[in-house]
């Protein structure tokens, strides 16, 4: 098409006639256009039916690494019986499954997420907190943390999850362990969980230092 476009002025002899009955079209172009349209429609359906699902948020530029051999979940602070659980010991604790909606403070949500893990209450019973206390949850990597009151921690659907949709958590979703508090926004549930610390004072979490509510109840 380069350089040889006829200059067409109405009324001049060069005015092109309407397209002929059968201009030569390219099958390859047709395929490409069809594929593009299918991709677009597929993407639109995916977005509208919520299949796009989770957006990944992390505050460190590197996703924390997990090694099942050396991983420990430390449960300590103001408790009678502090614990340090290996990965195998954590998996040996009574496991529960639950289906709950996930809500992000950014405005997206995922319905009916299937989680499996250990009730936070199970851990609380094991370590026996010494007095009404707060609980701080620390992520691998040492940057992210957040806290709950004991009452929030004892909500029936507060879960330390290690499986999501019947599969082990993937690194972006917090492998190996994440806290799930379905009645609050997702930032209240640290991923890559490595330490559960009982404290007398409430620790202000990562995002709460940056303006989010310390009680992340859904609005």
């Amino acid at each position, binding site marked *: 098409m380069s350089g040889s476009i006829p200059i*067409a002025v*109405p009324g001049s002899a060069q005015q092109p006639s309407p397209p002929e009955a059968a201009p030569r079209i*390219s099958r390859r172009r*047709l395929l490409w256009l069809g594929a593009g349209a299918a991709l677009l429609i597929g993407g639109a359906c995916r977005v*509208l039916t919520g299949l796009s699902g989770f957006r990944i948020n992390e505050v460190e530029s590197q996703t924390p690494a997990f090694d099942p051999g050396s991983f420990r979940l430390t449960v300590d602070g103001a408790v009678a019986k502090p614990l340090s659980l290996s990965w195998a010991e954590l998996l040996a604790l009574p496991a529960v499954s639950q289906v709950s909606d996930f809500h992000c403070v950014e*405005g997206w949500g995922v319905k009916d997420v299937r989680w499996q893990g250990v009730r936070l209450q199970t851990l609380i019973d094991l370590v026996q907190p010494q007095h009404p206390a707060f609980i701080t949850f620390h992520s691998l990597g040492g940057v992210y943390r957040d806290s709950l009151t004991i009452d929030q921690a004892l909500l029936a659907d507060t879960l330390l999850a290690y499986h999501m949709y019947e599969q082990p958590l993937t690194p972006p979703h917090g492998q190996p362990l994440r806290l799930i508090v379905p009645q609050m926004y997702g930032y209240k549930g640290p991923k890559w969980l490595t330490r559960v610390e009982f404290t007398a004072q409430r620790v202000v979490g990562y995002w709460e230092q940056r303006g989010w509510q310390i009680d992340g109840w859904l609005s």
Partner: protein
Amino acid sequence: MPRFSAASRLAHWALAVPFLLLLVTGLLLFLPPVKAVHVGGYRLVPLVHVIAGGVFLVAAPIVWLAAPGRGALRADLRGLLSRSAGDGAWLRYAGYTLLGARLAAPPAAKFNAGQKLNTAALLLHSAGLGLSGLVLGINFFTKAVFGSAFVERVFPLHDLFMLLSLPLVAGHLYLATINPPTRPSLRGMLDGRVRRDWAAAHHARWLHEIEATQARPERP
């Protein structure tokens, strides 16, 4: 020869610059390590996206309502949003050309049917993105206005409008900067002028109209 007034160019860029900034920062939000970058305690990309969204919502309307010489801008908008002779032939030509046929372009007015469809579609997408983005932007600053259930219904709409606008924006950029026959039009949006031979090839009816007007003798 002159094609776009300063007001029309300003209106175009007041829409285009925030739109492209929003598209780039919006797409970067899908890359967690980039989204995680902090400056002064705030995540840089989400913050720029939200601020650019505020600029997007006010910049183009301000230009449309307040730009000096906006008569020409209004005339361009009228031309873009109305039908004119040759639209049907031009659409048939564009359809066949997309499918690989080699045809001569039928003469078009100042705006051909493709430019008109692109404008209408982008204005619709801008409205959809702007309205849903306004909800999400308010939700970014305060949870007191909208409930989470409502916001979660709006969120995928924002994604949908973005997705549907991608081929439009990509096609527009391709035709304006890469495609050899059409890219001389970019100058019209930069310094307001285009080559006469380009106008003759692509907007013959417009050229004819202008030259007929100029050739008309001055009234006494």
